[in-house]
């Protein structure tokens, strides 16, 4: 029982991720001035869906927060209030909190109450400004939820007042002649919706427009409840359209002893007078059309509201209300607050039943919306990637044996083989494309980091993203999050000047941090730039000397000074703020980028700003490599690390010290590394004359000539991580499987150079390096 539940819950949280993305995306577009009603609808729906799902799982904290957020979005949606810039900040902040709450619910941790409350207060302030009644209602609406944390977890607080709401909805016409609506506790609940209703009608010149009268018969199937939908919301939505008379039909209600827990017995008839078109009415039932029996009849021209004002005999109508309350509890979609009229024994028995209901809930209540995408476990994709990798290997083996057998000269065989090769490549590309994801989600997370960072250091920061749809391998995205977070924080904290400084420098007070992604010659380029003061090289240089990272009086070029930032133990902030300076330096950032096979470079201009550019391989799954041989072992060197191949000769080899050698290459010296020695396969050879070497470089400033036995071929290799099977190995980035089925190791050029030992050593007179070792 618990297992399927956990599974559904897991899928709910997955869905939440998507919804949160939609939410933030929508808010952002909205903030930028997109006034398409669909945008705010999207935002509203996202919050609403999270609330609904959370309700089904009894995640009370999440529900109550989502509820107030949803209410705010609702009044924006209805056009009642146009948010200003500050309100957007409130909303974005609320979406962050919502995100935290979702994560906290998933991990069963807790979000600091103060933060949630802060956001709630802000939202309430937004709601409060709107109209008087709302101000009174909101606290009422919210507080019971806080209290109800003590209730059984199955309590669905999102629907806190369904029974009261429905019961009061029936005498709705009376409400209009009931000026002090908030006085009655029950009626009070209706005021959020009935009050806007009034203003709604006023805004649309209702009196001038012919009112349509709809007769709606609505009978939910059990599946409607099972999929987490809630008749109350539908009825509420209907009454938002106009004046309604809602009757509950409980003719089918069996005696209590015959009640089936998951059956649906109730149906409703609704008379609706509205200026809206039939289509709008249909729209309300959009998501549930297949889950209920629904008839909608239109009766234009209206005979006025007179019929409405003579409601059906209240006693007959109200009588069924009590049993209905129990039913709602029973179906697991309704209130945790015991309806006043229900008898306790029944109620407890029924709420037991509710415990069974949730597993059925939320199974696919959003199915219609996600039609265009499929959510697949990464494991499955990886398995596919592996299989395709196998296919590539197999194809290589087949080609090889065809050539060897001599039947390759047959035209048909040759053509077939070519086609096979082409197909294999296409399949491989397609599979890789599955792993590729737009960087959007990553950028959105960074938007949040900006918001938090800027409020922490009290700077006004505008966050601009470019190229959100650029696709990058999922693993890259995941592993980029930490370094990017750090860089973004740095940009806000150190990059941008204090507001006064900015004004003094003739800049706008608001700083800008730009995050961009693009594809550039088979690589992904990600840039983090700020329009701050740029790197203060004098300070950097002084710091580096103070910390003993470089020798005093060393002459460094601007680029070299900038690169000092990447040295371990370097931090320019004079004070350690609570934002950056957490012991994670740019060196860690650089290491994580290098680990991804990428590079990071800095461009900075004094007074104009700083840009960190990260270039990354498109995918981590396939790489172009040079297949080489060293002491009988086959190895692969990533092609992007190879600058050139060289043949060594005695006349360009220079010995330094007892054990190291450098190669003179045109006008510079490059350390010579014997790969077999570096990997511990053999002892240094006696002479390097006439040996083949690869000139490799992993980062801008490091280069080495690596001696190998021979070059075999150049080919695409499928990368197989070693981390999972053995763990990280110094000098080796990953493994791959060659055409003969043997495993070959892929060299980690950066690591080989950095950890060079034995008879060759990095002896370049680069002050930075020397400094680093000092």
């Amino acid at each position, binding site marked *: 029982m618990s297992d399927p539940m956990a599974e559904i819950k897991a899928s709910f949280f997955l869905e939440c991720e998507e919804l949160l993305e939609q939410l933030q995306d929508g808010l952002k577009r909205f903030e930028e001035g997109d006034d398409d009603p669909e945008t705010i609808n999207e935002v509203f729906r996202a919050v609403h869906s999270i609330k609904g799902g959370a309700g089904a799982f009894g995640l009370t904290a999440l529900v109550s927060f989502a509820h107030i957020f949803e209410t705010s979005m609702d009044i924006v949606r209805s056009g009642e209030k146009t948010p200003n810039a500050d309100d957007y900040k409130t909303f974005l902040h609320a979406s962050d909190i919502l995100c935290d709450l979702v994560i906290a619910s998933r991990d069963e941790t807790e979000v600091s109450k103060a933060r949630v409350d802060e956001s709630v207060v802000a939202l309430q302030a937004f709601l409060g400004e709107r109209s008087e009644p709302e101000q009174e209602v909101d606290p009422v609406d919210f507080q019971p939820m806080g209290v109800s944390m003590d209730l059984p977890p199955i309590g669905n607080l999102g629907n806190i007042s369904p029974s009261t709401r429905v019961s009061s909805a029936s005498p709705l016409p009376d409400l209009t002649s009931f000026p002090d609506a908030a006085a009655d506790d029950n009626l009070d609940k209706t005021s959020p919706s009935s009050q806007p209703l009034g203003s709604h009608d006023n805004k649309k010149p209702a009196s001038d427009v012919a009112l349509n009268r709809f007769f709606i018969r609505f009978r939910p199937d059990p599946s409607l409840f099972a999929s987490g939908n809630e008749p109350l919301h539908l009825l509420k939505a209907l009454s938002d359209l106009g004046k309604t008379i809602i009757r509950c039909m409980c003719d089918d209600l069996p005696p209590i002893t015959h009640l089936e827990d998951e059956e649906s017995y109730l149906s409703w008839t609704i008379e609706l007078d509205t200026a809206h078109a039939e289509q709008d009415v249909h729209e309300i039932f959009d998501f549930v059309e297949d889950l209920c029996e629904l008839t909608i009849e239109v009766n234009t021209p209206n005979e006025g509201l007179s019929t409405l004002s003579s409601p059906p005999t209240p006693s007959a109508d109200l009588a069924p209300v009590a049993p209905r309350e129990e039913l709602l509890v029973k179906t697991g979609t309704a209130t945790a607050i015991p309806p006043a009229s229900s008898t306790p024994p029944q109620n407890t028995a029924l709420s037991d039943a509710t415990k069974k209901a949730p597993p059925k809930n939320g199974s696919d209540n959003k199915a219609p919306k996600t039609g265009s995408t499929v959510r697949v476990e990464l494991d499955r994709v990886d398995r596919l990637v592996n*299989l395709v990798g*196998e296919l590539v290997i197999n194809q290589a083996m087949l080609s090889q044996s065809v050539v060897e057998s001599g039947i390759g000269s047959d035209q048909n065989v040759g053509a077939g083989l070519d086609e096979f090769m082409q197909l294999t490549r296409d399949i491989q590309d397609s599979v890789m494309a599955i792993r590729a994801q737009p960087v959007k989600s990553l950028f959105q997370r960074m938007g949040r980091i900006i918001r938090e960072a800027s409020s922490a250091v009290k700077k006004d920061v505008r966050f601009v993203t470019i190229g959100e749809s650029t696709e990058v391998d999922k693993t890259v995205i995941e592993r980029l999050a930490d370094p990017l977070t750090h860089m973004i924080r740095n940009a806000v904290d150190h990059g941008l000047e204090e507001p006064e400084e900015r004004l003094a420098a003739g800049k706008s007070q608001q700083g800008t941090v730009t995050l961009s992604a693009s594809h550039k010659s088979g690589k992904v380029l990600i840039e983090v730039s700020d329009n701050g003061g740029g790197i203060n090289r004098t300070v950097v240089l002084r710091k580096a000397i103070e910390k003993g990272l470089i020798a005093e009086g060393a002459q460094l070029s601007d680029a070299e000074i900038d690169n000092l930032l990447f040295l371990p133990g370097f931090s320019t902030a004079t004070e350690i703020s609570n934002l950056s300076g957490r012991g994670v330096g740019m060196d860690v950032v650089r290491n994580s980028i290098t680990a991804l096979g990428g590079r990071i470079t800095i461009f900075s201009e004094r007074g104009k700003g700083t840009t960190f550019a990260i270039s990354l391989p498109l995918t981590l799954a396939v790489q172009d490599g040079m297949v080489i041989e060293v002491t009988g072992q086959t190895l692969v060197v990533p092609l992007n690390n190879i600058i050139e191949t060289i043949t060594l000769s005695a006349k360009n080899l220079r010995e330094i010290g007892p054990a190291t050698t450098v190669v003179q290459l045109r006008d510079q010296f490059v350390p010579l590394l014997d790969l077999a020695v570096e990997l511990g396969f053999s002892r240094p050879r006696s002479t390097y004359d006439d040996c083949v070497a690869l000139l490799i470089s992993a980062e801008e400033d490091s280069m080495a000539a690596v001696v190998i036995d021979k070059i075999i071929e150049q080919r695409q290799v499928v990368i197989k991580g070693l981390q999972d*099977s*053995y*763990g990280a190995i110094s000098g080796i980035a990953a*493994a791959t499987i060659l055409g003969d089925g043997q*495993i*070959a190791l892929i060299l980690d050029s950066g690591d080989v150079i950095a950890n060079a030992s034995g008879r060759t050593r990095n002896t370049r007179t680069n002050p930075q390096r020397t400094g680093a070792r000092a």
Partner: protein
Amino acid sequence: MTDEVQDSTADLTEYLSFRIGAQEYTVDIMSVREIRGWTEATPLPHTPDYVRGVINLRGTVLPIIDLAARLALPPDENNDRSVVIVVHENDETVGLLVDAVSDILTISRTDLQSPPDMAGDNQHRFVSALIIEDERMIRILDLHNTLSTGERLAA
């Protein structure tokens, strides 16, 4: 479902026994994935001597641990009969190179004896229990310790 099965055979566990030199060891058969012949492994640099390297197991990279070296037993001649037992433990799959696979033993849990605590003997960490079966002493290999990542990384 699984619970019932385990209940009915609570005391009996099946072990795969294999030979390393003259010693006989066993592992819980539930952690054994497959048994395959020895193929030349690609050596990994900077690894302890008992790591023979990696082999291609249908597309995945499988590290091979030479159990004789791991247990500090005299090295075998690596004859043709050498066998790799693929085991899954601690969420990782590893191949154990042994001399020969001998048998499947059904052992009652009550027959298991803790290995005597011998100070200075580093090796009994790899043996979780001992059994006497037909006058032979059979050692139950402690896979967790044998494959322990910490140990491997530290080495």
